[in-house]
């Protein structure tokens, strides 16, 4: 039976186990005088039986999936005649691939490859057997587990506590998945970065402090190419410039719209305007990207030319400005929340002393909400630094180290994209540079997030 079908059957059995366990608890309760004489509610007895039915078989299924393939290939390989036994890991992979292809019928075995076609047959046979054994094992384990759980049902069984434990473990497992995935990503980036720094062309100081970025290097021995230089500073300067422009747009506009919505707008305006503003956050960044590249950038260029300024067609200003628009809802929504969270008694206190509304906002509400607002702004900065699509489309690729917003610049994320697009060799520093950049970006945004979270935490301590 296919694994997918197997899981469906298993689910059906779990359902049956649930009803059987529940039914048994009812049956046991009846002579005692009702379910209040049971330790737990019938639901828990059913759930307990269902858990006994599914958890052991799911564990077996997981273990099987892990060890099934390696064992089978090992058996197949050891069955090959001495003469064609592979010597290296690469050879072995090649040979396995070939056997695999013959087995699936994608390739025909050559006339002199009797051994291989025998191995392919063997592979097919083993797989089929394994699948049958698996089906039988899983189903019988499910039945046995279900029966065991069913038999355990008794008025004294603390089913509720057991189900709670299982429930808690499931939650814990889910939390672990998120954390382990993050760890996994970090480690894979770290290892690639270590590989990157092990090349002769690059040094850690050269990467962090170098001011020239031109990752194009010869990828074949006979190719005439630049030697490549990996100084990340221009990229970070570009990233910071664009993020800065974005924040210059997003922070004032976002904050002021938040203040308007929270303090001045009447409830009806607020309930329409806030979702509308948040739609901005729902527009895909690629749409913002072509808006920046096709509308804003040419407009800025024409505007600049009419004023006698030299504006490059892909300018930091266009990318940063559009990114700022994109980030407005981030800032405004978070700021709106913290401003609304300032207790009404603060407003009353200030108004009662004869302050006007705007004085109250400036002198009491804004300072009281400031830590929260800073937190929101820092999250928006992380977002701006990590943003890719808009800058890929609108900012350009030239790694200029400049503070002129009318110039074309490039960012860390753009370079990561260009380094990894297309066919790449994974043992050249050019490709691996992407991982080093990614790691550095990750560290920068992590620090910003930590800072933001700490500020938010400080804010929480301020009232009650």
């Amino acid at each position, binding site marked *: 039976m296919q694994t997918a079908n197997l899981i469906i059957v298993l689910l059906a059995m779990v359902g049956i186990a649930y009803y059987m366990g529940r039914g048994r608890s009812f049956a046991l309760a009846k002579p005692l005088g009702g379910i209040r004489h049971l330790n737990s509610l019938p639901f828990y007895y059913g759930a307990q039986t269902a858990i006994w039915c599914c958890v052991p078989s799911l564990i077996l299924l997981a273990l099987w999936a892990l060890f099934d393939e390696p064992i089978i290939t090992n058996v197949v390989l050891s069955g090959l005649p001495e003469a064609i036994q592979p010597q290296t890991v690469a050879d072995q992979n090649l040979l396995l691939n070939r056997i695999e292809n013959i087995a699936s019928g994608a390739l025909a075995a050559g006339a002199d490859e009797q051994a291989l076609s025998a191995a392919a047959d063997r592979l097919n046979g083993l797989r089929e057997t394994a699948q049958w054994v698996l089906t039988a094992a899983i189903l019988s384990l499910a039945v046995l587990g279900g029966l065991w759980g069913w038999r355990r049902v008794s008025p004294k069984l603390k089913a509720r506590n057991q189900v709670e434990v299982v429930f808690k473990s499931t939650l814990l497992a889910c939390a672990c998945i998120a954390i382990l995935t993050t760890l996994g990503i970090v480690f894979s980036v770290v290892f690639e970065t270590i590989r990157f720094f092990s090349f002769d062309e690059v040094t850690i100081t050269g990467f962090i402090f170098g001011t020239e970025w031109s990752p194009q290097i010869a990828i074949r021995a006979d190719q005439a190419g630049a030697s490549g230089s990996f100084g990340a500073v221009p990229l970070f300067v570009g990233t910071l410039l664009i993020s800065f422009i974005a924040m210059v747009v997003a922070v004032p506009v976002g904050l002021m719209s938040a203040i308007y919505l929270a303090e001045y707008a*009447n*409830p009806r305006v607020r309930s329409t305007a806030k979702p509308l503003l948040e739609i901005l956050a729902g527009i895909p960044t690629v749409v913002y990207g072509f808006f920046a590249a096709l509308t804003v950038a040419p407009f800025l260029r024409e505007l600049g030319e009419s004023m006698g300024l030299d504006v490059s067609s892909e300018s930091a200003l266009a990318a940063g400005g559009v990114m700022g628009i994109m980030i407005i809802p981030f800032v405004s929504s978070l700021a709106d929340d913290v401003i609304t969270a300032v*207790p009404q*008694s*603060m*407003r*009353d*206190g*200030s*108004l*009662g*002393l*004869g*302050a*006007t509304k705007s*004085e109250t906002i400036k*002198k*009491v509400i804004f*300072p*009281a909400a400031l830590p929260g607002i800073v937190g929101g702004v820092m999250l928006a900065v992380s977002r701006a630094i990590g943003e890719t699509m808009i800058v890929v489309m609108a900012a350009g690729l030239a790694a200029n180290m400049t503070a002129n917003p009318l110039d074309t610049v490039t960012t860390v994320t753009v370079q990561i994209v260009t380094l990894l697009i297309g066919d790449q060799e994974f043992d050249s520093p050019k490709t691996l540079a992407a991982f080093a950049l990614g790691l550095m970006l990750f560290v920068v945004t992590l620090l910003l997030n930590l800072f933001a979270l700490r500020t938010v935490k400080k804010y929480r301590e*301020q*009232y009650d």
Partner: protein
Amino acid sequence: MTSIATEQAGEMLISKTERTESQVVRDIEHGETVGEPLMEDAKMSVRNTDVFYGDKQAIFGVDLDIGKNQVIAMIGPSGCGKSTFLRCLNRMNDTVEGCRVSGELTLDGSDIYSKKMDVVALRARIGMVFQKPNPFPKSIYDNVAYGPRLHGLASRRGELDEIVENSLRRASLWDEVKDRLHSPGTGLSGGQQQRLCIARAIAVSPEVILMDEPCSALDPIATARIEELIAELRENYTIAIVTHSMQQAARVSQRTAYFHLGHLVEVNDTEKVFTSPEHELTEAYITGRFG
């Protein structure tokens, strides 16, 4: 008027006086305020004032004078409109959505609700202390200096220091906080916070101070200190205080106004209200039969 509240009040009365419910309702709704609501030389006077929240009327035709350098206490069961009435006196109800005030309210003869009246200036003349201490999350000094800075009352740093010190002294908080003026006001105890709020209110030298249950969040010792303070402040300010505690009203006030279901039932000298109330509702309330 909501029928449920009327019924409850009615039932309580019937148990005592054996009158019908309709008689009581008529009595509250058409009865004139008994006692002496009006006086000569009043600081503030209120005539024929109604307050509405949306369609719901909260205050019904109140006439009342508030005398200069006196403490007037407003008592009455929960929801009787005494806080609403207090908040009309410095137009704090303006900030409440859908709240409408009609009638004539004057401060030293000038109409509070006229178009010419500047709300900001009005609130500087009529300060307010709230039920829950609400110091700003700033230092003690900045809390007290908030109003003076706002209204430009001090041109030099030294003047501001003086105002802060005087206000804290008058609120009898100076000795406790003089060494930590620049630590946050929110770090003080509840009673100290409330005295800080009083200092903050008197720092702009108001003429009238409104207090909305200023001791309801405080322990008895802190309450006693605030009450002492109110007695001292009376020399310089006119004070209107809303309170749930009849003992407090009896201790701190010269006149007492009893509100019931949005109507001003009785106003008299405090002693008279508590020893020989004229209206049966007042008597029922102060003898603890309801409220």
